[in-house]
């Protein structure tokens, strides 16, 4: 097992993209260390440890965006009162990721890169129209998070690239809601996740654990724009069927997920802002 521990971003980017010696970027480790080092391939893989890259730490505010560095943790967001005031569901979602032991290590960028359809951090980021900032030796490019995933655990990041930041546009939101439905309140993986945000740009509805990727629900958004608030959860069924495709798996059933998603969505659109 090979581990690279560069101290500067330029050095880290210089190590990536070598097809003969691929490296898996490692931030907080809360996903990659599960089953480590039991998995045989964990011993033959190479890893790029990001923890010494101080350039990637922290939260930065500009006039029009909140930028989470690639090493920004859930706890960084939970303890930032400005985030709590302007993006309360970012804090709500972060508080539902494991507990402090995970929140202190797990990163938002890692949650994006890991690509789980049950991710807790990705739905709120997507509802806020977040943009993923990727960097390689060739330079930077930006991919909107709602265009980032192409399939189950398949993201836009190329081998030579690193997620260096997540940029969240600062918009006034009339409503923002996050709902996680799990088997228990703490330390659980979502059976259904939902983030809803309404700004001057319209509705943004994002669902988790009901498709191969965290999914922006554009049919639901259109339904809400064109016909206003639903009178019952069932009125959302047709649009939801166009947007998501829940399955039976070890955590829940397709039927339960579809019914619960319609109900929490109905509820989220009707209640006031978060």
């Amino acid at each position: 097992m090979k581990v690279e521990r560069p101290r500067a971003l330029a050095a880290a980017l210089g190590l990536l993209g070598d097809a003969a010696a691929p490296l898996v970027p490692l931030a907080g480790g809360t996903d990659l260390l599960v089953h480590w080092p039991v998995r045989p391939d964990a011993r033959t893989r190479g890893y790029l440890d990001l923890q010494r890259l101080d350039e990637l730490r922290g939260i930065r505010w500009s006039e029009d965006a909140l930028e989470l560095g690639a090493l920004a943790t859930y706890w960084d967001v939970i303890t930032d009162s400005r985030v709590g005031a302007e993006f309360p569901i970012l804090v709500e979602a972060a508080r539902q990721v494991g507990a402090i032991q995970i929140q202190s290590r797990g990163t938002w960028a890692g949650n994006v890169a890991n690509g789980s359809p049950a991710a807790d951090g990705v739905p709120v980021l997507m509802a806020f129209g977040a943009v993923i900032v990727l960097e390689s030796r060739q330079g930077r490019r930006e991919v909107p998070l709602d265009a980032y995933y192409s399939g189950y655990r398949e993201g836009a990041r190329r081998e030579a690239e690193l997620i260096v930041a997540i940029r969240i546009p600062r918009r006034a939101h009339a409503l923002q809601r996050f709902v996680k439905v799990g088997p228990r309140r703490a330390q659980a993986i979502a059976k259904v996740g939902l983030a809803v945000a309404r700004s001057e740009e319209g509705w943004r509805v994002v669902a988790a654990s009901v498709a191969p990727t965290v999914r922006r629900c554009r049919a639901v958004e259109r339904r809400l724009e064109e016909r206003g608030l639903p009178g019952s959860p069932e009125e959302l069924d047709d649009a939801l069927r166009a947007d998501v495709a829940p399955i039976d798996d070890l955590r829940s059933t397709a039927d339960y997920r579809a019914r619960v998603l319609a109900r929490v969505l109905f509820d989220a659109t009707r209640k006031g802002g978060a």
Partner: protein
Amino acid sequence: MHGSPELPLSFTLNGDAVSVEADPAARLLDLLRYDLGMTGTKEGCGEGECGACTVWIDGLPADSCLVPAFQVDGREVRTIESVDPARLGPLLSSGATQCGACTPGVVMTGLWILENPGLLRSHAIRELMAGNLCRCTGYDGIIEGIEAALGTRS
């Protein structure tokens, strides 16, 4: 031992400077228990669910089973071995311990609350303790013990 070159690490462990060579595949939990002989930290689930292996890294609780040992290079680590047994009285008298498997982790998270009481302005003790599973006590004794230690329980 595993055929990979060892990585040199220097960090602070319970206030003391430590320099070791670690297997790159070693978790912090392995480094503490097997390389440094600090066996107070326990392995429960080994996948970040139970919190038995909780230690502090730079002042924040973390599951040492989910941290590669090399990531504590340059950091401050605090383990159960740093805790004065005299501080455990409230937990012992509130029924917060039975089999003891979870106790080192419970103590490390509880101590974090005790040393950072400002956390309770935004969080309930129960939420802060949610990452420490206990299959014996039903949790009320743990919460009561922490409240007693904080002096917030009559």
